């Protein structure tokens, strides 16, 4: 039944964990729509045949609907609509709440290509390799205008904005190759801003990753990667450690918990920091990036506003590397893992 409806409606294959659930709601909504619109059309035609005009001077009675009938007109469709909303919103929460322990990949969009940076390894252009059956979280930002990351087979899509991070996640269930399409109009190359997700079996993925570490599979993906990437040596954490020294971050920020000119980086990720203006902030990827680009806008209470801006000094993947390095600095007491999860708990835990 699923397969038949999927083909009738031209839906692509269901290659992520939530694709089937979404399609089931899709069938329910679309079939109801078909039934209703056809029923209205047929009723109109039936009324025409039954009540066609028989003489030019024909008169008709004055009829008003009863209150019950009007209430039916309102509440029957409303019940359907609200049910769809409720089911759809529950799936949506699940669909946008990355599970703990998801593997992070940084995505940078620019006219007209996709760049990927893996915490554990290399950078790539237009080809995203992920293992199957493992949740992957994408942390995305754009260099220029708004783009949108869309993989039809996974039923996921998220706009990629300049000046901030957006995130999305998926878990691929089937090894294979899936097209990435840009869904937000971005100019002359919009329709060819395509990429590919290659889902590998977990062990193949590990093989590929270690091959990358050894530097064997040099630039397999064969695109102009060198454009504005620092040469990828080691994983993102290693790159971040090196960059933090090169850029002088560690002159002010310690990594062992002692207090210095700036807040320490140890256990910084997901710490609740009190700001000078009395508000507090959850230190996530977005806040760390913002602090590099515009350090004086949200200064942590008890510190002087002395940090210089690194805007135009750090490329996107370098920022990602430093963020990853900071995320790796966790004392044992603190949980390790990708993220605390968003403000909305998944309704059905995963």
């Amino acid at each position, binding site marked *: 039944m699923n397969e038949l409806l999927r083909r009738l409606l*031209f*839906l*692509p294959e269901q290659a992520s964990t939530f694709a089937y659930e979404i399609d089931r709601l*899709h069938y329910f*909504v*679309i079939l*109801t*729509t*078909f039934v209703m*619109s056809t029923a209205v*059309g047929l*009723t*109109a*035609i039936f*009324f*025409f045949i039954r009540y066609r*005009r*028989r003489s030019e001077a*024909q*008169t*008709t*009675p*004055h*009829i*008003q*609907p009863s209150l019950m009938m*009007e209430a039916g*007109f*309102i509440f029957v*469709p*409303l019940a359907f*609509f*609200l049910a*769809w*909303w409720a089911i*759809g*919103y529950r799936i*949506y929460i699940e*669909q946008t709440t990355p599970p703990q322990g998801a593997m992070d990949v940084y995505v940078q969009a620019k006219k007209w290509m996709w760049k990927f940076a893996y915490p554990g390894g290399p950078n790539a252009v237009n080809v995203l390799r992920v293992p199957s059956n493992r949740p992957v979280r994408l942390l995305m930002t754009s260099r220029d*205008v*708004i783009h*949108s990351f869309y993989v039809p087979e996974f039923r*996921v*899509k998220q*706009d990629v*904005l*300049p*000046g901030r991070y957006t995130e999305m996640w998926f878990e691929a269930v089937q090894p294979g190759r899936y097209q990435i*399409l840009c*869904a937000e*109009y*971005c*100019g*002359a*190359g919009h*329709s*060819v801003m*395509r990429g590919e997700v290659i889902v590998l079996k977990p062990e193949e993925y590990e093989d590929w990753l270690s091959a990358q570490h050894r530097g064997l599979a040099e630039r397999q993906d064969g695109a102009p990667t060198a454009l504005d990437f620092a040469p990828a040596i080691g994983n993102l954490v290693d790159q971040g450690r090196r960059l933090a020294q090169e850029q002088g971050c560690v002159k002010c920020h310690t990594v062992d918990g002692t207090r210095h000119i700036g807040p320490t980086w140890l256990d910084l990720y997901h710490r609740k920091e009190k700001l000078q203006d009395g508000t507090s902030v959850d230190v996530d990827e977005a806040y760390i990036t913002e602090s590099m680009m515009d350090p004086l806008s949200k200064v942590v209470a008890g510190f002087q506003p002395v940090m210089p801006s690194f805007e135009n000094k750090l490329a996107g993947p370098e920022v990602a590397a430093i963020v990853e390095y900071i995320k790796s600095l966790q004392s044992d007491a603190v949980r390790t893992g990708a993220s605390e999860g968003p*403000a*909305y708990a998944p309704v059905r835990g995963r």
Partner: protein
Amino acid sequence: MRQSVEDSRQLAAPAVPENYLRDGTTVGSWLNTRDHKRIGVMFLAAVLFFFFIGGVFALALRMKLLFPGPFLFDALTYNRLFTLHGVTMIFLFLIPAIPAVFGNFMLPLMLGARDVAFPRLNLASLYVYLSGAALAVWGFIHGGADTGWTFYTPYSSTTPTQVLPLLVAVFILGFSSILTGINFIVTVHTMRAPGLGWSRLPLFVWSIYGTSVIQVLATPVIGFTVMVVAAERVFSFGIFDPARGGDPVLFQHLFWFYSHPAVYIMILPAMGVISECVAAYSRKNPFGYKAIAYSSLGIAFVGFFTWGHHMFVAGQSAFDNGVFGVLSMFVGIFTAIKVFNWVGTMYRGAIAFRTPFAYICGFLFFLVFGGMTGIAVATVALDVHWHDTYFVVAHFHFIMVGAALMAFLAGLHYWFPKMFGRTYHEGWGLVAASLIILGFNATFIPQFLLGNQGMPRRYYQYPEQFQALNVASTAGATLLGFGFVIILIYLVIALRWGPRCERNPWGSKGFEWLTDSPPPTHNYDVIPTITQDPHDYRTHAPPGVYNV
């Protein structure tokens, strides 16, 4: 503002021309007129011209999409064409189409008034519209813009194409819309004939009233928003462009705060036309008159609180998405109420299957299907897959072409004798209607499937798996185009050579038929006193003598 009987006697003094079309035949007598009917007719000519231009753009786009690779023209030209198609169809055709044409012409007639409240302002709204349109055309000729009609920042604040003239044109056109809206609101409040209480207003008037409220409240927002984009381009403001410290999503909020209600500016008057036509051709009082009337106001109100459903994947919070999702479900209910009541109106009526009735049947199917797919895309989890794909394109074309344009055509045929005193060829009317309804389905149902399959909108080139459905869609569009050409031919013939008709050829009991067809310059020699509800068919009104 109500004129006394003495005044009307004077106005009806001898040597008065037999109807408004004969009252001065020079070009100047048209350009300087303050007659709402002539202004309506001039708006009709203008919007039909732009509908033709927008249609040519659409066909060019469809021709290109026959093939997945580059074909006919390059990507930049394609991007300009879809921008111009959108801007022309929305700002120059759909928004003014029904209010400025039929609203202008019929509203005072239905109210038993001699004109709108501010006739000069009415003429001004025509000239404001024409200057906005002229600027837009100037922009088209000097390169055009490639932003899409949505002007999303930061693309629109950085692209080197000619966005500025279009932004200013949208700003100017907005004023035309506001002027029309204010005029109609005041007219409905102050110029109703004796006996014409609010509970007796024709349903078309209710829908135009709701539309006018939206026009007056929402249009200023798009006005200042496009001006800020213009300022960002000219003076490098950093309001929307993050490279200059702005927020691109703020633009989307402001844009949709207008543009979602703008959908109702396009569809509400269409619903009004259908309410009139259903009653007239079913020869039956409107079923659930109050429900239809109040739902017009309901749409106008709730429509202001749903804009966020255009931004489910734009980086809006999950909480906002939930709220905008559920509010969008409520706006659907008002449309459902209307649909059921229109079908109810046919029950035990005396239905004549004329050309407008064919459009009514098409309209009902398209509105229910288009409306419910709207509910579908407001269902957050489903929208994630559909957002910015051809599914959305198909959905809004179902509403804007399927529903709004069908209603425009229904109204054009229903009121053609009222406006010009002649009738068109019924047989050709039905042929064209069938072609259009068939062609429309063939154009846009494949686009729903393309969206399911995952084809994003605004694609110049596309992966090959999408070709079959694209070819089907282009074939349908060609059929649709033929339908419009047929209408154009037989209406032009009818205008010149069509048989003259009597005052009320359909035996309708809408109030606009109380006066002659075409009406005299000042509509009513004696202001009628309304003693009946509109469309009360318990008695028969022969074509020549409908009076209350």
